[in-house]
């Protein structure tokens, strides 16, 4: 009996564990159900279209739609700022010049020659 359950459960064994998407979906469905029940305990006084749904910007007026949307170049600003030293080097690497692309190829070929040919 245990063997049968085992074979149904362990559809994909990886050597130290197993993975079964159907079990996963079952679990996630239960979790979603729980969330739905929890949501039912919420406050019933919510009404759409009133001032309840207006964005709260410390009392300031709401900007127009174009300005409210966070631009892609501003996302992850902190991360990019922290690793600016790294990105400077990457930018130096990606020159967009086809001669440099070939230069990288020749450099890698030389390194491989040294590793494989000499050893």
């Amino acid at each position, binding site marked *: 009996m245990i063997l049968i359950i085992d074979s149904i459960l362990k559809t994909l064994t990886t050597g130290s564990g197993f993975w079964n998407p159907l079990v996963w979906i079952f679990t996630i469905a239960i979790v979603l159900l729980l969330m739905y029940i929890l949501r039912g305990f919420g406050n019933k006084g919510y009404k759409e279209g009133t001032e309840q749904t207006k964005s709260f910007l410390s009392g300031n007026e709401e900007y127009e739609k174009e300005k409210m949307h966070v631009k892609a170049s501003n996302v992850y600003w902190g991360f990019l700022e922290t690793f600016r030293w790294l990105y400077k080097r990457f930018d130096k690497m990606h020159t*967009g*010049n*086809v001669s440099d692309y*070939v230069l990288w190829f*020749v450099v890698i070929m030389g390194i491989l020659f040294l590793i494989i040919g000499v050893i």
Partner: protein
Amino acid sequence: MIYNIPYIAVVGLILIGLAAVIFKRNLIKIVIGITIIESGVNLFLITLAFRENSTAPIYHGTGSRLMSLPVPHALTLTSIVIGVAVLALMLTLIIHIYRHYKTLDVRKIGGDEE
């Protein structure tokens, strides 16, 4: 030693071509560099086919039967044909690039337009 001269020429041609591709700024010169590399590789294949005192691989009926290898010749021909296609394509693209950027300098092309 004398039989090694073609191989030295092959390596020399490939290095010259690579140098042209890497260090020249003009797009036309880059294309010329690629063509030089290609001739180097073709010369290598032709050299492989050579046998001493051999004739061209044509069936004569009489005479010397020692022929150079036909297979590398076929390879070289195919590679030349491909080379022509690549060359034509590259030159066409250079015409287009010149129309858009008004320059053939490799450092000044290729930026995003925004």
